[in-house]
C-alpha cells in the first residue's frame, strides 16, 4: 500500500501537509526557482492588506542564537494588485494557495477578506492577528480575547472561503484564544507566529532592528511552538497548522505527534529554499520505515500519561 500523506485542513484538500509559511515565500515567484511549488502542500503568501504598504525602514533582520529577529513590517502590494498581478502566477501551479491577510481595523479585515470571494486560485485565508511588528496589523487584536473574537466574527461574515486564524504566542493562555476562534467559526488555526524579542548592538548602543523590537523565529522557538500546538490541540477540535522552527522532517514529526494536522516551514526556507521538499521526502520515509500508511497514524499520537 502506498504511503498517503494527503490531508484535508479546513476543507482544503492538500497533496501533503507541508506548507510554506507566510512571509517566508513571498508571493511564490522567487522561491519557485528553487522549490517546485507543484510539490508542496500549499503556499501561504506574504500578508496582504487593503492598500499597499512599504514595510519598516532597515535594519529589518538580525540573527540570534539558533534564530532570527525580523521587523519587516508587512510590506505588501495591496489586495487589488495581488489579485491582478500575483494570483495568475500562482494559479499556474498545482498546489493550494492560502492568502494571509491583515488590516488596521476590524473593518479592514472584513473588507480584505471579502475581496477574495470568487477569486479563482485562492483556496483559503489565513488571518494574521499576531504580527508583532506593526501597530496596526495584528498583535493588538491577537493578544486581546474580545478583539480576536470580533476579527474572527467579521472575517467569518465576509467570506465563503475557509479561514485559518494565526495565533500569537505572546499571550498567557493560548488555548483560550483558540477556543474563541473555534466558537466564532474559524475552520483552522495556525500556531504560532513569532515571539516578540529584541537585540542591542553593544558597539552602537542602538537596537539591532530599526523597529526596536521584532519577531523571533527559527529553531530557537521550536520548544515553545510545540508546547503551544500541543495545548491548542488539546483545547479545540478544529485542525491546527503547526509552525515555529521546523527545519527537518524530524522536527515536523514532533508537531504531528503533538496534534498538528499540517505544518508550515518558515525561516528554514531562508537557509534552504527547498527545505519543504526535503521535509516531505523525509516524512514519507519516516512513515514507511515504521510501516505506517497514513499521516493520520501519527497525528496527536504523543504518548503522555497524565
Amino acid at each position, binding site marked *: 500500500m502506498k504511503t498517503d500523506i494527503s490531508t484535508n485542513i479546513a476543507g482544503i484538500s492538500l497533496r501533503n501537509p507541508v506548507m510554506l509559511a507566510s*512571509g517566508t515565500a513571498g508571493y511564490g515567484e522567487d522561491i519557485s526557482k*528553487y522549490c517546485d511549488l507543484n510539490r508542496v502542500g500549499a503556499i501561504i503568501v506574504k500578508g496582504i492588506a487593503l492598500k499597499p504598504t512599504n514595510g519598516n525602514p*532597515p535594519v*529589518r*533582520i538580525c540573527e540570534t542564537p539558533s534564530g532570527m529577529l525580523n521587523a519587516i513590517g508587512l510590506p505588501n502590494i495591496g489586495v487589488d494588485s495581488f489579485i491582478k498581478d500575483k494570483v495568475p502566477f500562482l494559479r499556474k501551479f498545482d498546489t493550494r494557495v492560502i492568502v494571509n491577510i491583515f488590516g488596521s481595523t476590524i473593518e479592514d479585515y472584513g473588507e480584505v477578506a471579502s475581496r477574495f470571494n470568487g477569486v479563482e486560485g485562492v483556496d483559503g485565508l489565513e488571518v494574521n492577528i499576531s504580527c508583532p511588528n506593526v501597530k496596526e496589523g495584528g498583535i493588538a487584536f491577537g493578544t486581546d480575547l474580545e478583539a480576536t473574537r470580533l476579527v474572527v466574527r467579521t472575517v467569518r461574515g465576509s467570506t465563503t472561503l475557509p479561514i485559518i486564524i494565526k495565533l500569537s504566542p505572546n499571550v498567557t493562555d493560548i488555548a483560550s484564544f483558540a477556543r474563541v476562534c473555534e466558537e466564532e467559526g474559524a475552520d483552522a488555526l495556525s500556531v504560532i507566529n513569532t515571539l516578540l524579542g529584541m537585540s542591542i548592538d553593544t558597539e552602537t548602543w542602538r537596537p539591532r532592528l530599526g523597529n526596536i523590537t521584532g519577531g523571533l523565529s527559527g*529553531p530557537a522557538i521550536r520548544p515553545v511552538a510545540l508546547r503551544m500546538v500541543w495545548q491548542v490541540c488539546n483545547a479545540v477540535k478544529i485542525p491546527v497548522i503547526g509552525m515555529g522552527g521546523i527545519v527537518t522532517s524530524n522536527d515536523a514529526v514532533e508537531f504531528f505527534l503533538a496534534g498538528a494536522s499540517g505544518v508550515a516551514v518558515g525561516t528554514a526556507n531562508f537557509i534552504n529554499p527547498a527545505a519543504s521538499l526535503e521535509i516531505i521526502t523525509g516524512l514519507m520515509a519516516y512513515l514507511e520505515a515504521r510501516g505506517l500508511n497514513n499521516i493520520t497514524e501519527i497525528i496527536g499520537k504523543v504518548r503522555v500519561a497524565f
Partner: protein
Amino acid sequence: MKARVFSNSCLQGTYYKLIFLPPVRVNIIPGQFVMIRVCAADSLSDPLLSRPFSIHRQALDGSIEIIYKVVGKGTDLLSHLRKGDYIEFLGPLGNGFPLMSIPPPSSPYKGGARGGESLFSDEVIIVAGGIGVAPMLSLIEAIRASGADNNIKVFLGGRGKEDLLCVDELKKIANEVVLTTNDGSAGIKGYVTDALHTCLLNGHGQQTRTTVYSCGPTPMLKKILELTEHASINTYVSLESVMACGIGLCMGCVVKKKDNSGYFLVCRNGPVFDGKDIEV
C-alpha cells in the same frame, strides 16, 4: 547546493581566500554574490543563516573563489574549513555590474540599456574599500575581455597596509592603481574618497564620460555618490546589507528608493545599483 572546498587559506591578516567547486558549472557576472552556509554540521542551527559573499572570480574549471575578512562567528567558522570539506551554497545571485555600458571602441552600439540614456564610457574608475575589492578583479577582467580598451583607474583604500588586497593583480591589469590607507602605512594617507575627490577635481569625469564602479563600506559609498553626482558620471555601487535569504524571500535587505516610493531589495534588485536610483 553542496560544494566541495578546494582550498582555503589566509591571504594576509584576517583576510582569507576560499575556493570551492560547485557540482554544476554556473555562469557568473562580476558583482554577483553567493550565499554560503557556514554551520559546522547540517543539523546545527548556530549560526543559523547563510552569509553573502561577492564572487571574487571563477577559475577555468568552474570553481568559484571568494575572499573574505573574518569579522564574526560565521566567517570565523569559514576560516576553519579545509580542503575536502563541504559547504552549502546558493548562487550566483543578484545583478552584477552592468557591463553593457562599456562597448568595445569598435562597436557601433552606443545606447545604454538602463533608462535608454547612453552609457558609453571613455574612462572607468574603480573604487574599493577593504574587502570591497573582492568583485573588482573579475570586473576589470570582464571589461578587458569585452575588448574595451578604456582607461581603467583603480582607487583602493584600507585602514592600513594589511587591508589592501590584490594589489599586484590589479596593477597588472588596470592602467593605474592608487592606494590609500588611513594610517599612512601604504600609499596616500587618508580616505580613498579623498583620493577620488582629488582625481575628479583634476578634470576626470568632466570632459570624458566616466563610469565609476564601487564596493565597500556604506559611508564610503555615500561619499562617492556625493562626489559623482553630476551628469556625465555613471556610478554603480555594490551595497552590503544584512541578509537572511539572499533570494528575495525575507524582504529583510532593503535600501530606500531615491524617489521615496519605497524600498529595493538588495539581494534581488542589487547588490549593484545605479547610484541615481537609491538613497544610501
